[in-house]
């Protein structure tokens, strides 16, 4: 019987899978990949902060440009919204580790909605802030940094949406939750990066 099925598949003999690769590190490949990607992302932000440094410090331009004002308070509330989404994301991850399916779904959905709220508040801020990128170099840096971060929130939201869809379709279990954990790390990175952007652009 076995021989018969073997000859049946002789034509696809080379279609057997590869031998499992040897694991030479305790680090998860996906986790390591995400961490390296985050290093790369930090460097993109680093380049935008270089622009900020040259225009604000080296060029000694007043910050913000004369006659403009940055909505510190609204952005502060927005910061709180984004940071709380990190907490709900952690709740979702803890839930899936404990096998709490309802907690996973509720946590992911809340996180996604909080992130979406942040993005809407940010866009609303652009509409009402009263200056445009072409008004001054400071305005360019402001839109550059917050826009770059906004783009990352958007990417993060796409990832969170995938996780949420999969959570509602019954994926993930206490044994297999890497699909929640790794996009989650990205989301935490986006949050931490916002704190840095908020402090240097709005507060300082």
């Amino acid at each position, binding site marked *: 019987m076995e021989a018969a099925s073997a000859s049946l598949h002789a034509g696809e003999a080379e279609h057997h899978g*590869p031998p499992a*690769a040897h694991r*030479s590190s305790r680090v998860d490949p996906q986790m390591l*990949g995400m961490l390296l990607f985050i290093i790369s992302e930090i*460097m*993109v932000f*680093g*380049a*935008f902060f270089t622009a900020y440094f040259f225009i604000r410090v080296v060029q000694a*331009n007043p910050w913000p440009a004369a006659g403009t004002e940055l909505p510190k308070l609204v952005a502060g509330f927005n910061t709180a919204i984004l940071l709380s989404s990190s907490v709900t994301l952690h709740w979702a991850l803890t839930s899936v580790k404990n096998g709490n399916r309802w907690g996973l779904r509720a946590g992911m959905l809340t996180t996604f909605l909080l992130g979406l709220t942040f993005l809407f508040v940010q866009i609303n801020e652009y509409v009402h802030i009263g200056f445009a990128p072409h008004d001054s170099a400071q305005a360019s840096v402001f839109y550059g940094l917050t826009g770059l971060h906004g783009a990352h929130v958007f990417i993060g939201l796409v990832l969170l949406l995938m996780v949420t869809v999969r959570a509602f379709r019954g994926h993930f279990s206490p044994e297999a939750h890497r699909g929640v954990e790794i996009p989650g790390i990205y989301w935490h990175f986006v949050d931490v990066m916002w704190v840095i952007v908020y402090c240097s652009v709005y507060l300082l």
Partner: protein
Amino acid sequence: MTAKLRAPGWYRAALFLLLGVAFAYVLVGVVRTLMHEHTPWHDGQAITTVSLIAAPLFFLVGIGCFDYWFAWASGRPTRPEDHSSHGAHSWRDYFRVNTDHKVIGVQYICTSVFFLFVGGLIAMLMRAELAQPGMQFVDSSTFNGLFSVHAALLIFLFVIPVFAGIANYVIPLMIGAPDMAFPRLNALSYWMLPLAGTMMVLSFLAPGGAFATGWTAYAPLSTDMPLGQMFFTVGVQLAGASSIATALNFLVTIITMRAPGMSFFRMPLLVWANFSTSLLVVIATPFIAASQFFVLLDRALGFHFFDTGLGVGKDGYVLMYQHVFWFYSHPAVYIMMLPGFGIISEIISVKSRKPIFGYRMMAFSLLAIVVLGFTVWAHHMFVSGMQGWIRIPMMITTAIIAVPTGIKIFSWLATLWRGVLHLDTPMLFALGFLTTFTLGGISGVMLAMIPFDIHVSDTYFIVAHIHYVLFGGSLFTIFAGIYYWFPKITGRMYDERLGKIHFWCTFVFFNLTFGPMHVLGIEGMPRRVADYAQQYAPLNLAISIVSFLLGLSMLVFLYNMVVSWRGGPHAVANPWRALTLEWQVSSPPPIFNFDAVPTVVGGPYEYGVPGAVHGIFQSPAEARPTAGTIATSPTRE
């Protein structure tokens, strides 16, 4: 027909490409309507810009790079161990999305060699124009476009990706892994490349001509250029994204997928070299991405990162572009050199039948270059008008970075010392590399000296230096590597006689082409010009004639590769009697590399050590050393 348009492949890719342009057209029209612009549907600049971004992404979706991930993201069933897109059974498999690192490696190498020839032909056009003073074939702005596209293609579409291609093929085999860590990401990073290259070449068709800012695209020149500049700005983003994704893949592969027994200090130096390069790429490449984002935002959305004249207290800072650009692009010269160092280490050790001299110092000097590479960027800006004091520390660090490079040169020389040299084509290119790269390194240290640099800034001395390190350095290592792994990749032997002819022609004509440029530069002939003073005419004519011969010698290489691949004698598994793992499997290797993961029991370069073994095809339990049978990593005095 609809089935063909639904299945991943070229038909769907072409359809999606059109959809991408349509999407860009509609997006621009709608946004401009919302902003109450005049004639919202007729802005060719904006439509082209958005198309340049959207169409490649649509193409990638169409050809099938994202199919698996889309299925995964929407929660549809996927099989992680689905190998339907793995491996090549006919030449057609090289023209579709393939997840086999060997296929991707060949795709990378062939694509980048294609762009090498495109870039080389452009160089021939330039030399034709420069054969005499005055204007002959092209006008000056076309000439600016020629040298810009030449440099951009050869840097972003040849040197960087061809190293990624060689590494893609060799590294999983070398470390005993069945494939890269992320095969689908690997395929995606390959498919971005032909798009980037096509985009740069197509810039010649843009109104106003190709981008004419050099490969550096300094602001504000780049922010004021005609539309052709966008083809560079977006093309570099694609090539950069491709290179970051590959580097990340290499790092994860090297860290997590080494065969049992292969500790970091048993890795072949090619693996070390690509490990270091990948670190550089992951850390530095985002900076060029950002610099091109700045240019994109300036051009497309009216940002003012660089403009002055907005009023006191509102001005941008124009030198910021150069700082950000060189913070990538100086490490980038090591991205274009370190993998070559790895190739040379392999070849010199194998071909002189001796252990590599100072293995650990070779590895550490790579890491030293990675670290020091980030401390020297402003030596490109000595005459830019930046703060004068920065020049001194940059001069010192630049001189210091020659030390780890010197360690490598001397280690190679010491490896050759009293070795049994096999002077075949790969070895000849390796020795040629040692000569020309040392010359290029010396002119590099000369350029680090501020007074000398000021004297030769923007002259042909710079052209000579960069070609000595990138042509005499990188390209020689690439030729060496292609000849060295040709039997492994194709299963055929190349023609040794033609290989030697190729080497000697390249070596002689290379030196005759670029050597005299040092003299021209010191005499003050400016680079990047189509016309020049009468006094430089004789030397330029000689250079042009020799450069055509250099171009012709590339045809010997092409002929050798094509003919040998089709009908060369079959290669044995290990024609060089090398120890590293890729030579322990058949040529070409089996579709999944290894039937069983090998175990590494010794160092990779123990040539001439009696009984030395690097890897064996047994599990670690079976491979436990029993007295006298296996020489475990011999300790040398």
